[in-house]
């Protein structure tokens, strides 16, 4: 009787195993096929956010590279930097990437190929805070996981299971299918084409409510990983002899005190002998709706003035450095 049951269970077990193996095999095959197709078309995109990241990592040879979130993408005009500093420039900022984690990964991708002369890193309030979404947003680098091993250590910070997830060929391109499809089509023209990575915003801020003043004196918890990565970013620039300028660009609204992340960034920059320019509460920009499109972003007019100011500051800093060296 027991033998009968055992042989029956053994048969069922074997059958279940075979069926499951067949199922997994089909999934793996489809995953491999679609994943490779997506990878091919991801790297043949000709426009869009993902294309700009690929361009920064794989193609740009600009002397000046600008890093940062949307406040970099929409506020730093590379043409102005080229004209003022007589060096080629590319804006490698990306919307929504409000942490140095992403910027450091892209920098590693760039410095693997060549060494830029100047790097501008735009950082903002709360940059070093404990926001979990900063790690989720590293998903934007997933497509480079298999093709750019130098980025892996940063992408793996997203979760402890990241290496396992990347077994799938499709997963790195999760939720990207529409972008891959549309940005490969030549028929559709981009609404707002970028100017060497820079995306100017034409609109002017509409004032809908009374101006607020924000208290920024709170000392919140800082993320030690983000601090370490910022130091690594600085270290990479120092090692490759890249002139690094860390900048906090202007805000529209008045703040009392200085944001805790900015205070710490300033300290780190000072300790590493890096220039840090804080325009966050620059009176020239504060409460001037004609220069902003919203409370966080300068419009095209504002960006033009700001880019000129930053270029000027870099020139001055460069001169004083040269003088000091002499």
């Amino acid at each position, binding site marked *: 009787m027991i033998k009968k049951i055992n042989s029956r269970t053994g048969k069922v077990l074997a059958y279940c195993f075979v069926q499951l193996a067949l199922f997994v095999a089909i999934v793996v095959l489809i995953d491999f096929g679609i994943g490779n197709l997506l990878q091919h078309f991801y790297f043949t995109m000709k426009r869009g956010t993902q294309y700009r990241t690929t361009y920064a990592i794989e193609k740009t040879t600009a002397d000046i590279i600008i890093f940062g979130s949307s406040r970099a993408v929409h506020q730093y005009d590379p043409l102005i930097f080229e004209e003022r500093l007589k060096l080629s420039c590319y804006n490698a900022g990306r919307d929504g990437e409000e942490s140095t984690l992403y910027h450091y990964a892209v920098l590693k991708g760039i410095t693997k190929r060549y060494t830029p002369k100047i790097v501008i890193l735009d950082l903002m309030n709360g940059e070093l805070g404990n926001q979990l979404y900063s790690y989720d947003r590293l998903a934007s680098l997933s497509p480079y996981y298999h093709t750019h091993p130098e980025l892996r250590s940063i992408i793996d910070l997203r979760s402890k299971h990241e290496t396992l997830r990347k077994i799938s060929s499709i997963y790195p391109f999760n939720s990207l*299918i529409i972008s891959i499809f549309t940005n490969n089509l030549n028929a559709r023209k981009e609404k707002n084409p970028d100017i060497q990575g820079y995306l100017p915003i034409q609109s002017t801020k509409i004032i809908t409510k009374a101006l607020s003043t924000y208290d920024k004196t709170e000392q919140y918890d800082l993320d030690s990983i983000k601090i370490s990565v910022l130091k690594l970013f600085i270290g990479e620039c120092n090692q490759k002899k890249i002139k690094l300028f860390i900048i906090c660009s202007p805000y529209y609204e008045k703040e009392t005190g200085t944001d805790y992340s900015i205070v710490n960034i300033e300290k780190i920059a000072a300790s590493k002998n890096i220039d840090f320019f804080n325009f966050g509460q620059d009176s020239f920009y504060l409460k001037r709706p004609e220069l902003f499109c919203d409370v966080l972003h300068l419009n095209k007019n504002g960006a033009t003035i700001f880019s000129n100011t930053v270029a000027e500051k870099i020139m001055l800093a460069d001169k004083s450095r040269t003088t000091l060296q002499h």
Partner: protein
Amino acid sequence: MLFNSLHFFAFFIIVTAIYYLLPYKLRWILLLAASCYFYMAFVPVYILILGFTIVVDYIAGLCIENAQQKKRKLFLICSLFANIGVLAVFKYYNFANENLSSLLHYFGVNNPVPFLSILLPIGLSFHTFQAMSYTIEVYRGNQKAERHFGIYALYVMFYPQLVAGPIERPQNLLHQFREKHLLQYNNFAEGLKLMIWGLFKKIVIADRLSIYVNTVYNNADQHNGTTLIVATLFFSVQIYCDFSGYSDIAIGAARVMGFKLMSNFKRPYFSKSISEFWQRWHISLSTWFKDYLYFPLGGNKVSIKRWCFNILVVFIISGFWHGANWTFILWGAINGFYLLFARFTQNIRTKLTSLTGLSRLPKINLFIQVVITWLLTCFAWIFFRANSTKDAFEIVKKIFSTGGAVFTEGSSVMVFSCAGVLFLFLVEFKRHYYNGLFSLSNNTNRLIPKFYYCLLVIMILLVGVADGGQFIYFQF
């Protein structure tokens, strides 16, 4: 440990493999240990609360069975008091204290009662209700008291349904722990299919919709009526996919090991009336309230006034069960009012159907009934989802007073959301109205279901929200 995590994926494979390798007499030990591990993966110390209710109800069950009539009731009351007491302390204490503070503040007095800084134990309402159903059934004589402590503990802690149901009855589940479950291909395949479908609903549909819904509902003051309508309709699908997805994974995981849990959802949005909706939505909770609250209150075999009272009490308590917030109480009350309204307008509606000629057009009549029922449930969901009652009323006001263009949270979010909703609608519509027709999921040609479920897995990898987070009902 979330069902939509790699941690659970590994846990499930290991537990199921060992389960079938062990002699069946030892399997309960494995399942109990696995369930403890599963629960402790959230907040380890809260297993003590679970342990407390298990010990109390185990002893209460034995005492009830062995005692005389009067003492039986006393033991039942003690058990219910302990269970409801745990709920009161961990779930409702701070809510009650907050309301007391507001009341005292109104009279210019400071509240001297301190607040507790505690986290709500995961799935507290679910396992408490399951434990209560055991002592009630023993008291009623429908279930023999379980003498094996380990088996009883497993009844409360069985990991697939521990944190978000289905809320089982002892008559359905307890005996299954003593049965010898042989590995059967049918159970194995059907269980895995259910798990994949549940994961698809959670990761591809619910978590995608949540991106839009959270953006709109967490900044409701910045959005117009049209956007709030879209977000509310999306939320109705989100919560369905989130919760029924969880139930499917739970039922599927149990099924792989040979256990049959009760079904929790039967395509509720195809209901023709609110009363039908409640027979199809969260069935294990609805039947719990029906069996242990509505019928003891007299059900519908009472005067009309008393019936109205019974309905309102059941739905308000049901709302309160979901969470310690006035929004849930209002949500429950609205659903209760719907049922009262349906009862009192039944004759008028029948006449109206006949007068408009809809009675001669059954398909159109059915369509109208289904759409109206869905819209009514959507209206109630506003109160369920809103962050506060103030927000909920603001949203209702905006929906009925302002229009404008729909906010789109990035074109891909909208495209994936709409595609997910459409896919779900087609699948459920086919299952509901044309179940006998050609089926991809249950085709006799075994390759077709394999490819269908492969496609679902590929969709999860391709467009699923990888870091969607926990299930909505975990907080209850």
